[in-house]
């Protein structure tokens, strides 16, 4: 069942990976671009018809009615057709009458849609890299513990259990808070990857250890040991058994770490503001009174939800798998 679901789930996973890779390239604007007189501008509606009948997709230029109240209206006399694949952009308009704001603008007049696409690369990238790091550590530690057994196994799993019991968000908050607060985006990226890997590996190590320990007792492993295979030689034969588990673990860890990035950046100790990540974008939504009037600021919350939901559908949730394992042990 899980295997069929995973295969079905490859579609959303591929779509999400693609979004992360090409997001910044297809964004209409740069993430830091601020547009004058567009603070909290609402999303532009894409129209398909006007008084004279159906037309190719177009938008009406936005007009700032009141700067204090920040009210905007569509200027029906100035239609702007959407241009596809021109000027190096997938979609753009003639910007003489103002920028294309498909998802509205934030408090500094920055295009939310573009920031969402730029943020996708950063947020999904850090979640993906953190997952990879966790897999590398987890497979190594789990494999070692499972194939060696004895005191090494017990002490490694004790460490893993210790980290598993701690709430991940607190661990990351404390560790990140202890480091210098203001850092460049590449440093933050590397740092968060390392922190995520350090707090997520026990999930992988626990499962890999269990699988490797079971495999070790089987005849082929016995035969390999009898013919003089050392620990690492043996591991090469034992680890492939954990392949399916590792695949599922990827689908479980990416959404968890995506939420972790959002949380840490929301607290202001992740990526810093001019850089767009899904977490920093939520900070703008943290201004509660503005949120009621500008719900498009929650766009990145919706994006996080969509990715987590898609990956859950593809690979199931952590507790589902844990229950599957525990009800058979």
């Amino acid at each position, binding site marked *: 069942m899980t295997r069929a679901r995973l295969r079905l789930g490859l579609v959303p996973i591929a779509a999400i990976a693609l979004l992360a890779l090409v997001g910044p390239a297809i964004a209409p604007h740069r993430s830091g671009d601020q547009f004058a007189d567009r603070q909290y501008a609402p999303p532009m509606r894409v129209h398909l018809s006007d008084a004279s009948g159906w037309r190719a997709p177009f938008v009406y230029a936005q007009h700032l009615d009141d700067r204090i109240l920040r009210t905007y209206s569509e200027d029906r006399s100035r239609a702007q057709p959407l241009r596809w694949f021109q000027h190096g952009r997938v979609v753009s308009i003639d910007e003489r009458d103002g920028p294309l704001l498909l998802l509205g603008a934030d408090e500094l007049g920055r295009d939310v849609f573009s920031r969402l696409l730029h943020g996708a690369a950063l947020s999904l990238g850090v979640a993906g890299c953190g997952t990879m790091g966790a897999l590398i550590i987890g497979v190594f530690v789990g494999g070692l513990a499972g194939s060696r057994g004895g005191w090494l196994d017990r002490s490694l799993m004790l460490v893993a259990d*210790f980290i*598993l*019991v*701690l*709430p*991940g*968000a*607190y661990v990351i*908050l*404390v*560790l990140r*808070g*202890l*480091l*210098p*607060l203001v850092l460049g985006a590449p440093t933050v990226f590397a740092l968060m990857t390392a922190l995520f890997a350090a707090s997520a590996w026990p999930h992988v190590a626990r499962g890999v250890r269990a699988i490797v320990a079971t495999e070790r007792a089987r005849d082929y492993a016995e035969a390999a040991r009898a013919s003089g295979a050392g620990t690492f030689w043996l591991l090469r034969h034992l680890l492939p058994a954990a392949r399916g588990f590792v695949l599922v673990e990827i689908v479980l860890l990416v*959404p968890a770490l995506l*939420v972790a990035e*959002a*949380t840490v950046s*929301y*607290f202001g*100790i992740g990526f810093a503001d001019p850089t767009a990540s899904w977490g920093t974008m*939520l900070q703008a*939504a*943290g201004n*509660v*009174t503005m*949120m*009621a009037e500008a*719900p498009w600021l*929650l766009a990145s*919350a919706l994006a*996080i*939800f969509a990715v*987590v*939901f898609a990956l*859950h*559908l593809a690979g199931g*949730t*952590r*507790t*589902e798998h*844990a*229950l599957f394992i*525990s*009800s058979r042990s």
Partner: protein
Amino acid sequence: MTRGVSAFLARRLVTAIVFVLLVSSSALVLTRLVPGDATTESAFTPGGQAVRAQERARLGLDRPIAVQLGAWLAGLARFDLGTSSRFNKPVGDLLQQHAGPTAELATVALGLALVIGVPIGVLTGARPRSLLARAITPISLALVACPPLVGALVLLWLALVTGRLSVEPGRLAVPALALALPLGAMIERLQSQATGEALASPDVVATAARGVPPARLIWTHAARRSLRPVLGLFGIVIGTLFSGSLAVEWVTSWPGLGRLTYDAVVSRDVDLVAGCALAGAVLIALGNMLADLARALVDPRVREQP
């Protein structure tokens, strides 16, 4: 039988105490190990280095780490958690103000999640093809995917737009719901899966063959059997609860441990960091011990585990 349970509890208590001491000690040592301390900023004020040296001596930061750790542990034995350099108050008082609300929020959210999740999970697990199960499963899957940070923001927005829920800081409704909904959905999924498996197990099938009415079969025989795997995952549930509560506290300005921990860590307030870690570890250990106790009560095999 009761002797088995109390011996089991005693073992778990020892583990819990070691856990709490380990967490708070490592928090203290970590805070000392990183560059910078509570006095770093005073070096830039007039008087500079001299003032800083004085401050370091007053806060005990000139002592070696091992000595400070020893002093802190000795203080702990007397229930003295030291003084916060950031707030200039006893750490014990600060923790009382902040750990209480966190515990309250977590308890209310967990209770709500259990009350919603368990009965609905039994219903959907017992009749997976019924209309009810078909309606609830997608909702539940969507709520599981709704992290508390996102949930809290969306609930705040809903509260503002509809005007039904109060968004005042300190009101329980929004933070408790933001935590309880995904957690309740998670428990519902778990309970549903476990109930389905329990109903298919040979002993329950045999009970059904004896002519036990379906309602009793589901709510007594299968439910009791499904409790074991569900309670076994409570460690994950409690971890999720506290991770989520950190985000929710932040969004809704709930005066809990999260903000205090952040302030403590950022201002390198050694005693307060250790105190926050202690309070958090105690809450988690308590939660896990309660789950273990419940497990030991329903499943005799658990008591025999080391």
